[in-house]
């Protein structure tokens, strides 16, 4: 009997506390990944929005990049996804392909879209003609070069980098000191340069929307023959030592300690790449003269999307509008996601001197050389895995240029036929 009474008491207390919960407060969940600077900026934007909209509370769910996609897809599968999601640009198509998960942002959505570049919204944030998200910023790529290492090898730091000068000048670093190399680049980034070289040769976009390759085996072979020279002439760090820092080249002690001269970076990552490098110069990546497609990407840093099943789409869109169009939101976010996507925000940050020079410089260089946007198939993760695998075998000298080219074409065609 005593037990029964205590059980009843516990239940009563629980019920009372539930009933006492405040009513009418709207809560939105918002998830993103990033580093600490981005977290702080985003949290302060949330605070500013909540101050202006007392009825809305935004729950922040943030962390690092590792595992973010896995978590998000699991949440989408279990219908427990946040209302507002930061997603990577390729996921717009990849996820929409699997199911209708994102809210379409229509004309009357309450967001002022006038400041955005229309082609950017169409090329990168839409799926089957419907706008599924908004770009968080402009992100481009360029080379970052260590002036001290260049000087030690007798290379002019104002050198403009072409595919030829990377061989003729770049090889000087290793010739001068056998422990040093010009390029700090693992097989994963190298595979990006292989596709870029092929795109510049062919003028195509690697794989068309029709799932057909837009290059020939001969073009792929020419590309691999060129990159063989990078290895033979000591332009690039050997794969056996770069592999441990594959896709995180900035962590390689050879870069930090000045044993390598040059690495590739996205504008959004320039902070961490140059963290230990005071003396750097930013330069454009090589483009063949008269290439119909430079292959150089300028794409959204990320995309903000709203869940189709959000219970409060109106408020979620209002929050997006606040971050993109309200001066308070713009200033709070600053350049935490690269150069802002709207002209208005760019002007405001410039006026308030909130735009780091490097981020702007990289984005401008990339914009000047901007190539054709990638297709869904060229961005597909299984396609990327095949390219990376072939290039890694090539980088470890297991495949000749001819064999690498024929493997690449055969395996890609096989995979594309299976989709």
């Amino acid at each position: 009997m005593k037990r029964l009474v205590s059980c009843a008491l516990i239940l009563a207390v629980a019920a009372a506390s539930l009933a006492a919960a405040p009513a009418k407060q709207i809560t939105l969940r918002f998830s993103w990944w990033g580093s600490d600077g981005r977290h702080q900026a985003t949290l302060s934007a949330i605070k500013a929005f909540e101050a202006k909209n007392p009825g809305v509370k935004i729950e922040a769910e943030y962390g690092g990049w590792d595992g973010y996609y896995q978590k998000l897809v699991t949440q989408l599968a279990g219908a427990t996804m946040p209302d507002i999601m930061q997603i990577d640009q390729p996921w717009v198509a990849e996820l929409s392909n699997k199911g209708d998960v994102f809210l379409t942002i229509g004309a009357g959505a309450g967001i002022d879209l006038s400041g955005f570049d229309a082609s950017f919204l169409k090329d990168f944030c839409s799926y089957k003609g419907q706008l599924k998200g908004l770009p968080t910023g402009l992100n481009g790529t360029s080379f970052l070069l260590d002036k001290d290492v260049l000087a030690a090898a007798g290379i002019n730091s104002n050198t403009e980098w072409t595919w030829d000068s990377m061989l003729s000048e770049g090889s000087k670093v290793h010739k001068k000191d056998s422990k040093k190399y010009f390029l700090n680049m693992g097989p994963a980034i190298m595979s990006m340069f292989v596709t870029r070289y092929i795109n510049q040769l062919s003028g195509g976009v690697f794989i068309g929307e029709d799932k057909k390759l837009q290059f020939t085996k001969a073009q792929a072979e020419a590309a691999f023959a060129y990159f063989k020279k990078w290895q033979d002439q000591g332009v690039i760090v050997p794969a056996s030592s770069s592999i441990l820092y594959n896709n995180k080249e900035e962590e390689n002690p050879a870069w930090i300690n000045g044993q390598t001269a040059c690495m590739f970076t996205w504008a959004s990552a320039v902070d961490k790449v140059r963290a230990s490098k005071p003396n750097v110069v930013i330069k454009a990546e090589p483009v063949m003269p008269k290439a119909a497609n430079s292959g150089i990407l300028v794409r959204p840093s990320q995309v903000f999307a709203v869940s189709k099943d959000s219970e409060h789409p109106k408020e979620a869109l209002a929050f997006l509008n606040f971050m993109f169009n309200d001066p308070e939101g713009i200033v709070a976010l600053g350049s935490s996601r690269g150069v802002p996507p709207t002209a208005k925000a760019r002007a405001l940050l410039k006026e308030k001197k909130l735009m780091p020079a490097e981020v702007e410089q990289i984005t401008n260089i990339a914009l000047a050389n901007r190539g054709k946007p990638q297709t869904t198939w060229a961005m597909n993760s299984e396609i990327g895995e095949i390219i990376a695998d072939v290039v890694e075998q090539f980088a470890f000298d297991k495949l000749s240029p001819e064999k690498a080219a024929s493997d690449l074409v055969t395996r890609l065609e096989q995979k594309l036929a299976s989709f």
Partner: protein
Amino acid sequence: MRSRSRYVGLVYILPWLVGFLVLQLYPLVCSLAYSFTDFKLLGTTRWVGLKNYADIFTRDPLFWKSLGRTTVYVVIAVPLKLAFALFISVVLSGNIKGINAFRTMYYVPSIMGGSIAIAVLWRFLFMKEGVVNQILSLVGISGPNWLGDPSLALFTISLVTVWQFGSSMVLFLAGLKQIPPSLYEAARIDGAGRARIFLRITMPMLSPIVFFNLIMQTINAFQEFTAAFVITQGGPLKSTYLYGLMLYDKGFRFFQMGYASALSWALFAIILVLTLLSFKSSESWVHYGDAQ
């Protein structure tokens, strides 16, 4: 009264029971069901019968590749780990001053062992210009590229996981303590040397524990994931692409959940067969004290 006490027992194990049903049995049954579908987390799911299993064994070169790498890993890592655990436990079973402190110290790696932070540290130790090679260079040896050389990386990963020998060690220690001292005394009186005592008395008396550890460590080794994932990401050239990594890639990078479920059941079957074979073989080498 009798039936009531039965319910009381149930209530006591309720926390475990709920955990088991919800967090283990339910996912287990689900994954078995998924393995017969093309479940992709999102979108529609279709029943595909045995197609996933047929594809695994007939059309997936990566399955054979990673199963091969995993087998090599098991063959290197398990005996190394058991030998090391046995060696340390024999040393620790003696009467040394402060023995309990040593026992605790040797168990610490097993508590920290599988974490990401430790795996990152291993990468620093074993990279080409890492601490291990710097120490080797002090004695004039030019160390190899432990993790960057495709023919060496798997061996390095195996070495690294030997570090977590604590749980086997504890069991060996307990087993050693169980061996009656009278056996050793009798052997010594008969003039047996140390090596002979170890081989003729310690090993046979310890064989049930060796057998248990062998089974448990083999099962664990087939499922190894963290070290290879964090230190080498399966590279270079897929030389450390263990089964667990392939399973993760299929399930959580390419979201072929149905196929990944089938892969995990295939692994279960492989481990089951190996375990049964070990049990069969144990009849000839495991001695249980009472049976003669």
